[in-house]
C-alpha cells in the first residue's frame, strides 16, 4: 500500500509511503508538520496540492469517515471515547450491529462477543460491558485501537501514543504495535521518545519545517540512514533539530543543600496518597517517579490547595495550609500542571493574558479597575527573550504556538511571581528535543539560583539527568529514594521501574529506603 501526499501549507512537497508489515515512525520538532500530515492522512484536512494514493489509486479524503472507509484510521492523542457508553458500544459506534429486517434493533450480544474478540486480539483484559468512564488511560487507548480494528483498518496512525502512558503501559502498547505490524498492517506513529523509535520502528521519517529532511530504514536489525551508517538516538535528534545537540541535560555544580525550603510531614492527598515525608532544600532538584495512578500529581496538587490534603506542609519552617494556588503563590510556592492544554494554560487566550494571569494583581491598579496593558506586554516580551520563546504575535491565541513554546510560557507565568519553591509536573510532556534541553536548562538555572524544585516525571532519563535525588511513589506511598550517586549507576532506571511497579521489595531494601 502506498499513500503519497504533498504540500499543505505546513507541509512542503512531502512524499512518503507507508507499507504493510512496517512500523513507520514520523518524528520532528513541534511545529515541523507532523500533525498536519496526520490530519491530511485521516481526512481532517485537505492537501492544497498533490495527491494521496491508496493501493496505487488516487483517493480524496474529504472527511474522516472517508479515510476510515479506505482503511486508514487514526488513534488520537486525546482519546475520543463517549464516556456514557460501554466499551462495546464505543467500539461499534457508527457501525452498530443490528438484527431483524429493519436494521434498527441492536444486537448487543453479537457486539459484545465481537468486541471481546477484538480486545483479546489486542491482549487487553477489558470487559466489553464496562463503562468507558471507568477505563484507565491505557485501557481507553486499547479500546480506541479496537475501534480501528473494528473498522477493518489497514493503516493505523498513532499520535504520540505513549505520551500519556506510564513506562509499563507503554511497553505493552509498543508490543501491540509490533503485533499489528506482524498481522500485515501498516502502523504509523508519531513520537517524541526517540528511544522508542530506535527500538521499534522499521522506517523513520524526519520532518523539519514542513519538509522531509531525513529517512532511516532498518535492515539487519539496525536502523540505518540512507548511506547505510547505523544510527542511534543522537543521529535522529540531530536530524530533527538540524544541528548537533549539546548535552541534553545541563551540568550543575552540586553543593550541600542545607536550608530546607519546603517540607512535607506525613503528607498526602486525601484518598490518593498518604504518609509522605519529604524535604527539599534551597538549590535542590528532587524528582518524583511513579507509574500513572501512583498519586504523584494528586499529591502535588494537594500541596497547593487544589485537593483536600492530610498532614503538614512547612515552607521555610512555618506550617502552612494553602487553600488555593493563589494562596500558595503568596508564600512563594508555584505548581505547574502536567495537563498543559486543560489546566496549565488557557489555550484560546493570548500569550500575554496567559503569561500574566497568575500575577495579575501586580499589573492592576485602582483596586483592579485598570490593568497596565503596556507593562503586561513588556513583561511578556521579557520572558520571550529570557526563555527563548518563539512567538510571533503576543495577542494571538497561545494554541498557535508549538508545545515547547507553550510549555515555556506555562513556566514563565509562574516564574513571574518569583517563587522560592517550584513544582513542575511532567515538564517536557509533548515537547520536542530542542525545547526539552532548554526547559532542563531553565530548571537547573533556577535551582542554581537557590530555588527548591520538585520535578514529577514519567521519563526516567529526565529524572536521572536532572535531579539530585528521586523519590519513588507507588499507590500513594513513598517506596524508595535514590540519591545522586545511585542515580549515576547504569541500572538506575531499572531500579526506578522495579520500585515503581513493586516488582522486588527485597532489592528496594538494598538501596537507601528512607
Amino acid at each position, binding site marked *: 500500500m*502506498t499513500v*503519497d*501526499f*504533498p*504540500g*499543505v*501549507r505546513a507541509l*512542503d*512537497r512531502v*512524499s512518503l*509511503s507507508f507499507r504493510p508489515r512496517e512500523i513507520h515512525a514520523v518524528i520532528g520538532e513541534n511545529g515541523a508538520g507532523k500533525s498536519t500530515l496526520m490530519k491530511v492522512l485521516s481526512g481532517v484536512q485537505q*492537501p*492544497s*496540492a*498533490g*495527491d494521496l*494514493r491508496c493501493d*496505487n489509486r488516487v483517493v480524496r479524503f474529504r472527511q474522516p469517515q472517508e479515510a476510515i472507509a479506505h482503511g486508514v484510521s487514526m488513534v488520537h492523542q486525546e482519546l475520543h471515547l463517549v464516556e456514557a457508553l460501554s466499551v462495546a458500544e464505543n467500539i461499534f459506534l457508527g457501525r452498530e450491529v443490528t438484527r431483524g429486517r429493519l436494521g434498527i434493533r441492536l444486537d448487543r450480544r453479537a457486539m459484545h462477543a465481537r468486541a471481546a474478540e477484538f480486545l483479546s486480539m489486542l491482549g487487553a483484559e477489558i470487559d466489553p460491558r464496562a463503562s468507558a468512564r471507568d477505563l484507565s488511560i491505557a485501557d481507553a487507548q486499547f479500546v480506541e485501537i479496537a475501534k480501528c480494528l473494528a473498522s477493518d483498518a489497514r493503516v493505523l496512525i498513532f499520535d504520540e501514543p505513549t505520551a500519556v502512558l506510564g513506562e509499563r503501559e507503554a511497553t505493552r502498547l509498543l508490543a501491540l504495535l509490533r503485533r499489528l505490524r506482524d498481522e500485515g498492517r501498516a502502523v504509523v506513529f508519531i513520537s517524541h521518545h526517540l528511544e522508542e523509535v530506535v527500538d521499534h520502528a522499521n522506517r523513520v521519517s524526519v520532518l523539519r519545517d514542513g519538509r522531509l529532511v531525513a529517512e532511516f530504514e532498518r535492515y539487519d536489525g539496525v536502523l540505518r540512514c540512507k548511506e547505510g551508517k547505523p544510527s542511534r538516538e543522537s543521529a535522529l535528534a540531530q536530524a530533527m533539530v538540524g544541528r548537533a545537540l549539546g548535552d541534553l541535560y545541563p551540568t550543575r555544580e552540586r553543593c550541600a543543600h542545607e536550608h530546607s525550603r519546603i517540607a512535607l510531614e506525613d503528607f498526602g492527598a486525601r484518598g490518593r496518597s498518604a504518609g509522605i515525608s519529604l524535604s527539599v532544600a534551597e538549590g535542590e532538584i528532587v524528582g518524583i517517579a511513579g507509574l500513572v495512578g501512583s498519586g504523584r500529581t494528586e499529591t502535588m496538587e494537594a500541596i497547593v490547595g*487544589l485537593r483536600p490534603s492530610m498532614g503538614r506542609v512547612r515552607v521555610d519552617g512555618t506550617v502552612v495550609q494553602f487553600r*488555593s*494556588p*493563589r494562596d*500558595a*503563590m503568596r508564600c512563594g510556592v508555584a*505548581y505547574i*500542571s502536567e495537563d498543559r492544554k*486543560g*489546566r*496549565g*494554560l*488557557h*489555550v*484560546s*487566550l493570548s500569550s500575554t*493574558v496567559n503569561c500574566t*494571569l*497568575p500575577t*495579575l*494583581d501586580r*499589573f*492592576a491598579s485602582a483596586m*483592579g*479597575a*485598570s*490593568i497596565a*496593558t503596556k507593562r503586561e506586554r513588556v513583561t511578556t516580551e521579557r520572558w520571550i527573550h529570557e526563555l527563548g520563546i518563539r512567538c510571533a504575535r503576543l495577542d494571538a491565541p497561545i494554541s498557535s504556538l508549538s508545545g515547547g513554546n507553550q510549555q515555556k510560557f506555562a513556566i514563565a*507565568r509562574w516564574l513571574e511571581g518569583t517563587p522560592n519553591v517550584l513544582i513542575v509536573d511532567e515538564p517536557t510532556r509533548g515537547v520536542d528535543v530542542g525545547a526539552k534541553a532548554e526547559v532542563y536548562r531553565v530548571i537547573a538555572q533556577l535551582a542554581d539560583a537557590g530555588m527548591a524544585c520538585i520535578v514529577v516525571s514519567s521519563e526516567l532519563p529526565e529524572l536521572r539527568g536532572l535531579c539530585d535525588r528521586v523519590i519513588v511513589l507507588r499507590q500513594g506511598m513513598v517506596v524508595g529514594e535514590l540519591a545522586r550517586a545511585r542515580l549515576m549507576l547504569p541500572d538506575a532506571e531499572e531500579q526506578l521501574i522495579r520500585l515503581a511497579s513493586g516488582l522486588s521489595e527485597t532489592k528496594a531494601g538494598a538501596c537507601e529506603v528512607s
Partner: protein
Amino acid sequence: MRSLVNSSSTPLAASSRIGRLFERWGVLVAFLLLFAASTALQGGEFASVENFRNMLNQNASIGILAVGMTLVVISGGIDLSVGSMLVLAAALGLTLTNELIAREWSEGSAVALGICASVLCGTLAGSINGALIVFGRLAPFIATLGGLVAFRSVALAMADAGEIRSASASLFKVLGQSGLPFWNFQNSAGKPLTITYATMMFLAIAVIAQWFLSRSRYGRQLVAVGANETAARYAGVSVASVRLRTYIIMGALAAIAGLLQSSRMNSVSTSQLGLGIELDAIAAVVIGGTSLRGGFGRVWGTVVGVLILGMIANMITISGISPYWSGAVKGAVIVLAVLVQRSRA
C-alpha cells in the same frame, strides 16, 4: 512506488483574512445596512438622528439587561431570571415609595429610598442566583430557571398580580421620560431633541462594562473563567468570587432596567413588565458575537445586537406588517447571526 508532487503555499490566507474581518465587524455592517433600510422605509425626510434617538430610548432598559447578560454569558453561564428580577425589584421599589409618600415623606426622599431599595433587591436576587450556582453547584440554567419562576411570583403576590401605580406624580417618571437637549438638534415637531436619562444610563453602563471587560482585573478573570474554569483555578483565579460577582452585577443591572421601565410608565404591571425579556437579552448577546460557550465576548457587539433587534421591531411596525411576524424575523436574524459569526476553525 512513490510520486513526488510539487506544490507550495496556498491562497487560503487571503480568504480567511476577509472571513476574520467579517467575523469581527459583521454585526456592525449588518446594523448599518438595516439602519439605512429603516431610514429609507420611514421616508427620506425622517431625520435619522431622531430615529436613532428613539430607538436608543425604547431599548435602553433591555440594553442594560443585555450588557449584564454579556458578562454572564462570557463567564460560561446564563441568567434566565432577569425579567423576574426586574419586575420584583421595580415592584418593591415602587411599593416602598408609595408607602413613604402615604406617610407624608417628601417626594424626593421617598423616590430616592425606593430606588435604593430596588437596586438592593436586585443585588440580593442576583446573589441568590450566584450563591446557588457557586456554592450549591447548580447549573446556571437550573438555578436561574428557579429564579425566573420564583421572583415574579413574589412580585405578583405583592400586588395581587395587578398594577402598582406610582404615587410620585412628577419625580419618579423623570428617569425614564425626561432628558437633556442634544446639541441643537430638533425633533420633527420643531422642539429640541432630548437624550433621555435612560439612554444615558444605558450608554454609560455599556461603556463602563466594556472597559471593565477589556481593561480590568475582573474582566480578565471573567474571560479566563469562561474560557476554561479549571485552568483559571490552577492559575490562582478565585473562580467562585468571579462568578458570584457576575451574577450580582446582573441582578443590580436588572433592577436598574426595571426602574427605567417602570419610570417610563410611572407604574409597574406585575404580570406584564419584563415578561420574556430574558430571551431578547440573550438574543442580543448572541447577535453581538459573544460565544454562548463562554470565554469570549464583547459589550459593544451586544449594544449593536440590541439596536438590530429594536430596529427590526420598528421596521415591522412601520411597514404595516402584522406584528405577529416579528418573531419569525427575529428568529431568522438570531440564527443567521450565529451562522455567519461562528469561527471557521
